């Protein structure tokens, strides 16, 4: 049970449905595809603000598509950050 509402793609309309469609079409390594087959939880966690979603993930794409850190190095920074912040997700 989430603490704040999550609007799932199946229930989304308007701007949220449109931005979910764009997020679904993003190029993504297969290992990042959730085993539940849907859109990643961290994307859906932004569902109450469809304007924020492309800003945050656009920045993420800009940070991580060009290097120079390798994929394992980026994951290392992300994992260390997440552990210190005690992020359960």
């Amino acid at each position, binding site marked *: *049970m989430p603490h704040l509402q999550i609007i799932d793609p199946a229930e989304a309309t308007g701007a949220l449905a449109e931005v979910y469609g764009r997020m679904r079409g993003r190029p993504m390594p297969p290992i990042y595809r959730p085993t539940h087959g849907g859109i990643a939880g*961290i994307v859906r966690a932004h569902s109450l603000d469809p304007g*924020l979603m492309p*800003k*945050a993930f656009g920045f993420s794409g800009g*940070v991580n598509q060009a290097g*120079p850190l390798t994929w394992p190095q980026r994951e*290392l920074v*992300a994992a260390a950050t997440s552990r210190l912040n005690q992020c359960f997700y």
Partner: protein
Amino acid sequence: MVIDPRAVADRHPDPIVRALVRLAAAVTEHPWAITGDELARARAAGLDEAGILHAVLQASLFGHFNRIADAVGVDLDYPDRFHAPHVEPATPPYLSPTSAPDPQVPQPITLSSRPGAVDLAAAWERYALDREAPLTRRQRAVVAGAVAERLGDTTTPMLEPKTDLERALVDLADLVTLAPWRLGPSAYTRIRLLGMADDAAVFDAVATASSVGVFSRIRVALAALAR
């Protein structure tokens, strides 16, 4: 999986691994305490300026994703094969600054050295600050000033909260910035009672603090590397 980032930062045999985890920890816990020693250490480990900037941006960005995931309480996407450690809510908050880097000093590493980064950051930051609903522009500015102050970012003006709701928004912004592991329903009670009852407004309060924290962390870390 990184069980104890501090142990990895101190003891991993690969100097680049040590340097990356040290940078991630510094940006996450206390960007205002970074000094040029961090830069020298990262360079000695074999990272160049672009790699150091990449690590600063990635740590700052994941600070946002961590906060949003915890604030919303979203389900895991994968089977939990690694048995993630439990959250310990009693963990003390990150320290508030005892000093702040001078943003006017020429910086060895700048955001503009990464193509496109300035525009993407500006678009997100503008979105976080320049809207009138659910939070008003004034409320966004109050939150941004409080977050900046907690991270040592002197480029964003601190605005004194004037109403109970503004004070409650600052308290929530403190939690978002310095103790994100405490986010959850009880963190939202006060702003809900003071009129921000619906989830979209609560989300906006958290996301505004989290978003501006990304940019304060980047600004402070890059300014601090010049010391």
